[in-house]
């Protein structure tokens, strides 16, 4: 049970950590000053969630593990993030769509996780839900804005859908550690979230004049530690300092 809880907590942390790292690359490159600040704010929010989960995982693991060692010294295969968050930023439309897919999922997940029998996870979820509510609102509006915007923005969002939709299903497939923890009411049954997720996505896509793709072949594996090569590049950049200069601090 303890192993499953550690894996689950790391999964939640890694999802947030990798997306935060990806979004932070927009810092100084946003399409306009205000949106540069918005996306990096979101990045910081998610980083804060990752820290909370890592800190909790570190206490579960013991053995001198810290939030830093978990973020900066684990290898590719130890990361349990879903494949979606390791996909490239691409253009603004793709970053927006990735955020919308993820925030929509995270909102439903945290809503349920609030009533987890694990008090620590429940508390983190309650705190994070307020942030995610805003992320969902912000990214939803941008999906509408771009989808129902110019021909160019519409086309870019369509491209993003084509690239990212294959990673949606993985969010809603329980990993073995999730199944294990379901018995004790600790984890959220993610398969039960999909209908609500689709409902929300459809209503936003309707406004955005976009179509939800059908019959997309789903790629999976990230939650078990089997990643695309993209995660390697992300970790190489993210972990460089701690690997090159162990125990360095600000």
């Amino acid at each position, binding site marked *: 049970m303890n192993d499953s809880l550690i894996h689950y907590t790391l999964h939640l942390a890694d999802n947030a950590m990798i997306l935060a790292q990806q979004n932070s690359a927009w810092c100084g490159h946003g399409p306009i000053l205000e949106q540069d600040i918005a996306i990096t704010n979101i990045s910081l929010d998610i980083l804060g969630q990752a820290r909370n989960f890592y800190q909790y995982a570190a206490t579960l693991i013991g053995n001198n593990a810290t939030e830093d060692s978990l973020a900066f010294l684990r290898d590719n295969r130890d990361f349990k993030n879903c494949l979606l968050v390791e996909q490239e930023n691409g253009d603004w439309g793709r970053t927006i769509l990735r955020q919308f897919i993820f925030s929509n999922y995270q909102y439903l997940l945290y809503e349920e996780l609030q009533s987890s029998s694990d008090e620590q996870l429940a508390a983190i979820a309650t705190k994070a839900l307020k942030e995610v509510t805003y992320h969902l609102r912000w990214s939803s509006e941008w999906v509408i804005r771009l989808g129902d915007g110019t021909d160019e923005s519409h086309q870019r969002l369509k491209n993003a859908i084509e690239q990212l939709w294959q990673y949606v299903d993985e969010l809603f497939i329980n990993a073995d550690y999730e199944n294990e923890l379901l018995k004790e009411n600790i984890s959220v049954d993610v398969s039960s979230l999909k209908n609500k997720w689709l409902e929300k996505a459809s209503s*936003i896509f309707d406004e955005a004049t976009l179509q939800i793709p059908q019959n997309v072949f789903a790629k999976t594996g990230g939650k078990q530690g089997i990643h695309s090569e993209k995660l390697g590049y992300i970790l190489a950049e993210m972990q460089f300092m701690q690997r090159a200069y162990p125990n360095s601090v600000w």
Partner: protein
Amino acid sequence: MQSFIKKYYYGDIPDDNAGGTNNIIQNKDEKNWSLWEVFIRSKQGLDHKHAGSLHAADAQMAIENARDVYTRRNEGVSIWVVESKYIHASNPDDAESFYDPSTDKIYRHPTFYDLPDELKHM
């Protein structure tokens, strides 16, 4: 969840008379987003104060940008935005006739009353 493109107007101004954008983007060819002035209320009971300005395509985006740009450090509990073009200002050239006449009229300040000692905090 709330609907996303909903406008909130202060007071009882009817929608069609209100400034700002009734349509999402007034001019689709417009390359530059318009300028908005942001007013933040820092606490319940205080007034909204001018915080600065920013660019946004519509009112909804202006409020969210204001939230992200001006309330990140816990500065506010309420935000107003208004498109800068709807703000009318006095002309600096009028300053003499506008403001100077009041400088020598100290009798307009209520400082010439004898107050009973019981009155505090005046």
